[in-house]
């Protein structure tokens, strides 16, 4: 980008700014990804600021506003999405719940992704024996019912959010592990990796420079969809008393509490469910944008201009 003509001392800053501008331009080129980014930013703001500002409003019960229907401003702007079974404004609750939801889902997904991918890399790259042990471990975890795991954790340890994340993360590890290994097996046979090996590149270099970039997109795709799964699975476990307890709240818990009202007051389960869907979609759209933006052979699609596919 012609940066070589600039004096060396200003290069890093300029480069960063130019890089940011490029990123933003590429984001702008993909309108859907752009909307997704904006939505995620809003969710993030809600997660940070929500509990600080709206906690009172979100937990104040008012049985007269029980199951108040949506799209009415009569009770104030926070009732625009309706009220829940105890007459608490759904909008305020969704905003406040963003924090717990995001914290749990993100830590569970990231933990399982990191552990799973690492083990998968080892299983695919290290010796046969170690690989075999890791794969059979994955088999054991896959066959171990997550509910049983949760009940055991509940009785042996104690109900806490950290333990909830532990249960969720353990049950999701095999997915990443197996996917990573499968990709590694495939990629390491490819020409450029073989070439790098022949040329004496270190294992670490091969993994980080050649293998990881190829398998990352698949992992990210699965991780974004796992977000939705974890958000809903978490609520199934709070049934056991592990994890988030009322009056604390998450989107998954709101969805499952609204379940019994599905045929009469659909909005109780619908809005938090929609929040889950939109968050998942945004993450996925952003990750597929990233996959294009990070891939040197694909990037032109965004740089040329999004008109053709925006």
């Amino acid at each position, binding site marked *: 980008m012609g940066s070589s003509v600039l004096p060396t001392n200003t290069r890093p800053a300029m480069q960063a700014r130019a890089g940011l501008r490029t990123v933003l331009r590429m984001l702008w080129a993909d309108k859907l990804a752009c909307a997704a980014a904006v939505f995620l930013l809003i969710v993030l703001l809600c997660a940070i600021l929500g509990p600080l500002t709206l906690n009172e409003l979100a*937990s104040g*019960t008012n*049985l007269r506003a*029980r199951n108040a229907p949506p799209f009415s401003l009569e009770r104030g702007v926070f009732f625009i999405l309706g009220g829940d*079974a*105890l007459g608490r404004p759904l909008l305020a609750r969704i905003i406040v719940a963003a924090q717990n939801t995001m914290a749990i889902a993100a830590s569970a997904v990231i933990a399982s992704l990191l552990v799973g991918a690492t083990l998968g890399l080892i299983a695919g790259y290290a010796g046969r024996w170690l690989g075999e042990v890791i794969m059979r471990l994955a088999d054991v975890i896959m066959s171990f019912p997550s509910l049983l795991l949760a009940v055991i954790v*509940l009785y042996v340890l104690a*109900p806490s959010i950290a333990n909830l994340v532990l249960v969720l993360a353990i049950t999701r590890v095999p997915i990443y592990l197996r996917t990573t290994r499968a990709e590694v097996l495939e990629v390491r046979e490819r020409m450029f990796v073989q070439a790098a090996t022949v040329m004496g590149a270190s294992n670490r270099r091969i993994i980080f420079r050649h293998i990881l970039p190829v398998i990352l997109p698949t992992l990210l795709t699965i991780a974004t969809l796992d977000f939705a799964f974890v958000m809903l699975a978490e609520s199934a476990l*709070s*049934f*056991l*008393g592990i994890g988030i*307890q*009322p*009056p604390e709240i998450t989107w998954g818990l709101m969805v499952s*509490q609204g379940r*019994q*009202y*599905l*045929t*009469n*007051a659909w909005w109780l389960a619908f809005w938090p469910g929609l929040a889950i869907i939109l968050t998942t979609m945004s993450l996925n759209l952003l990750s597929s944008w990233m996959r294009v933006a990070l891939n040197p052979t694909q990037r032109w699609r965004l740089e040329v201009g999004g008109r053709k596919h925006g």
Partner: protein
Amino acid sequence: MSRSMLLGSLFAAAGALTPAFAQDASVTVVLAEEPDLVEPCMATRSNIGRIVLGNISETLTELDVRGGEGLKPRLAESWELVDDGTWRFHLRQGVTFSDGSAFDAEDVKHSFERAGSDQITCEISRYYEGIEITPTVVDAHTIDFTAEPAQPILPLLLSLLTIVPSETPIEFTREPVGTGPYVMTDWTPGQSITLERRGDYWGEQPEVARATYVFRADPSVRAAMVAAGEADIAPSISAIDATTDMDVAYPNSETTYLRIDHSVPPLNDKRVREALNLAIDRDAFIGTVLAAGTEIAVAIVPPTTLGWNGDIEPWGYDPERAKALLAEAKADGVPVDAEILLVGRTANFPGATETFEAIQSMLSEVGFNVRLQMVEVAEHEQYYSKPYVQTQPILVGAQHDNSRGDPVFSMYFKYHSEGRQSGIADARVDELIEAATAATGEKREALWRELFAYLHDEVIADVLLFHMVGHARVGERVDFTPTIATNSQLQLAEIGLK
């Protein structure tokens, strides 16, 4: 389970959707859970009792839940007190079991001994705990029951004992044999149970010729099945779904309350317990979180029970007085700021979580420091039954079911100092329970009345909340009115066809 059966179910003709016998006298009942067993001696368990009681198996006596006539004869034609501890039952003659054998006194004796045997774990035996009962066959159609100590309500206790043939082995059976108007003809685990009418039943032939029970865990699906005409009766649907004119509300004999362990401060202080009661706006729940028709409870048993005391004033909602009581207790050094754990059971009843959330918020409002913890059934049991968790003051939200007409089935367990779920140890309460258990007639009723008032007003034993209602959906083809006992039994003979 054969492959052909599966293929058959996969590829069966679509025509099978509307059964060929739709016109005849068959009904489909959709229940929440499939019973693990269809074992007569387990009929006190509601999911088994609904299928077995009065349909497959019969009892010597029967409590009239429709007419209010009290205890009625069924397999016993009459009974009398021979001496202080002995009751004599004259059995009905000409009765046969569904396997063809004749019913006599030996069957009654065997049924009783089988239910109490330590070779199997029949549930009924818990009602005879602490009582030595000896059955003695007098002749083929007369049997004596001698109880030590004397049991004035022995005939009522025997309304729980289902009669099986004397050949029945002392192990759980999956092919129940009884004297009832129906016999089980099919049980496909996971799918359905079918009962068919017997031609040789001793009594009047019921209208319904065949009943199929299917099982759906989700209440809205049960409601939908009746709406779609796939089932005729759903005895228990969610209040939220009960919005059509097919739906009937009925008191379901469950009472919701918060059990207090009086030995842990600050709950050992009567003012604190009064404040708990005054802080809850019970009226606000009814018609909102809980169904309309729910009643405020002043006793742990429903109003249809002997000795229920209508003179007791329910605790009103008075947050100011509650705050004042707390302040007073605090001035006397009672640790009213201690965190109180409120334990609720998930899915205990429709709206359970919301109910406990609202209670938690109401208690916090007057200054209690309450943390809510919803737990699953196994963990709830650890809090509910002795030995108690006493690491901190705990309120246990629970439901108790007594549709059997007499408080004896509740009071010992819930209030006697030895009771497994009793939070109190009060000498006067123990005395009253023991005296009432041994008394008969008006004296018995008066003692129970006195006990209820004493527990509610003087001891403030717990936070009594509500007598609950259930909702049934009844399809257009059939005529059925649920009763207070519908939770525990559903006699097909009481179903009419239109």
